[in-house]
């Protein structure tokens, strides 16, 4: 699979299907991008599991922190890698060795490791690289449009409110909006 561009249907399919996300490399510092993304996804109903050896045993946003993926006691749908590209391969290897294999490997903005991607894909996992799930969710739910960002979506269908709170949107079904879907 080519990783320069992803269709909206591919990204929306992933973000609609996953329920549990383990964020490897999340920071406890409230001003870091990983903290922002964790909080955003938590508020949109994802089960968020922080993984960070330096914070193991503590809580981030009320969620217990684990030292490594293999310590997480429940099945993980998506591993979200917030570490430098050179760390991606051992993380993917650890993910593939889990009792219940995840369905998706997601690497953050500027994180890209083609070897790790190929390994995951040949084991049947979906891979996304150099993207932020918060930004992609914001783009596909139309929330990010409030910030003047080019969502690169075009649709005559109404965006869907999350159902709780003001100014919160949800992703909506794939058929509504996407090219390539």
């Amino acid at each position, binding site marked *: 699979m080519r990783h320069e561009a992803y269709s909206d249907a591919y990204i929306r399919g992933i973000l609609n299907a996953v329920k549990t996300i383990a964020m490897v490399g999340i920071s406890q510092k409230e001003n870091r991008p990983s903290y*922002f993304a964790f909080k955003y996804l938590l508020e949109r109903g994802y089960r968020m599991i922080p993984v960070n050896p330096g914070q193991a045993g503590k809580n981030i946003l009320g969620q217990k922190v684990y030292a490594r993926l293999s310590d997480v006691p429940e099945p993980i749908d998506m591993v979200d890698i917030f570490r430098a590209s050179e760390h991606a391969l051992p993380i993917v290897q650890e993910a593939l060795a889990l009792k219940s294999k995840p369905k998706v490997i997601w690497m953050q903005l500027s994180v890209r490791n083609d070897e790790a991607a190929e390994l995951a894909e040949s084991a049947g996992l979906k891979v996304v690289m150099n993207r932020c799930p918060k930004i992609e969710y914001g783009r596909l739910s139309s929330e990010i449009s*409030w910030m003047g960002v*080019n969502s690169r979506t075009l649709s005559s269908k*109404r965006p869907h409110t999350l159902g709780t709170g003001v*100014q919160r949107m949800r992703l909506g079904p794939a058929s509504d909006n996407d090219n390539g879907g």
Partner: protein
Amino acid sequence: MAEAERIPGFATLAIHAGAKPDPTTGARATPIYQTTSFVFDDVDHAAALFGLQAFGNIYTRIGNPTNAVLEERVAALEGGTAGLAVASGHAAQVIVMHAMMTPGDEFVASKKLYGGSINQFNHSYKNFGWNVVWADPDDLTSFERGITAKTKCIFIESIANPGGVITDIEAISKIARKAGVPLIVDNTLATPYLCKPIDFGADIVVHSLTKFIGGHGNSIGGLIVDGGTFDWGASKGRYPMLSEPRPEYQGIVLHETFGNFAFAIACRVLGLRDLGPALSPFNAFLILTGTETLPLRMQRHCDNTLAVAQWLSKQPEVAWVSYPGLPGDKYHALAKKYVPKGCGAVFTFGLKGGYDAGVKLVSNVKLLSHLANIGDTRSLIIHPASTTHRQLSDAQKVQAGAGPDVVRLSVGLEDKEDIIADLEQGLKAK
């Protein structure tokens, strides 16, 4: 698996980019959110919005849902990553510069610019200690020579006011890239219909929406488009608003948090928020309506203008016509590269009768409107030397293409025969 997605055409984007039916009411046209403020769920939600952790609206000085549609519309048309709407083109320039410049810094600017920009750079920016270094777009080495250790950016216009000048965007973008500074292109006269500067290496595009994008002479507005192409972290602290922890936002680093739309966000949450030139949502709505017909209008503008320029070039009272659409024009070759669909609607011509003939013509026309603007459905005429460029020195006026004999036209969408007839009676009248 990653199927190629159909990319919508320009006319489709001009109508739809940024706009979806209102989630609550289903309203199809963009509602005018004529509100100053927006409620929060609770204090945590408020804190998340203020801290940039959540996307949403707080206060119309910072952002407004009507303005947001316009921002995404123009960003999509330009091929950028994000947009920011502000009160005017002048405000767009100040906000862009404010994000990059500190007292003592310099920027290199083409000397072939709208007179208002020349004044802003030469006079008002002095109060901030921002120093302009002028360069000649007809001599690219002057841009290279203008770069110093203090240079923060390069500024040019794609089609330059008062008309007839096409700037070699790609060549200048290479100079900017080599110097490690972003290239800003004012694309007002061309609009993305005729030219997309980001395709040629621009990093930031600015617009006076007042002109062709709004298109109907009814609303002042400006817009900044982030090309998403410049690496703000690469230049070792040269752009601290983007690359350093911001005290205004508990120490977040904007280019890490917002990736390739960080510059637009910085302009919004640091510049617009603190300096205040917000666009009225009502203006945004009117400009958006104009944007829907941008491709139709721009093509008609260009076709009418070519006919008018051709007619003028045959008139005995006319000494010269500067319009790149005419064969033999100095910029004809650059026009074929940068604006192949047409050379825009704004151009200048010189009258053999000099200053007095210019004044007489603008006084005698009955269909063309004598006023200071460009990019209206109505045809417009002005004598720059006595108006838009009045405050420049005689030498600067000539340099800017606004000498005493020069008349500037912004050709509108009337029947071209009527425009020509009005110019004819105006030229021949005693």
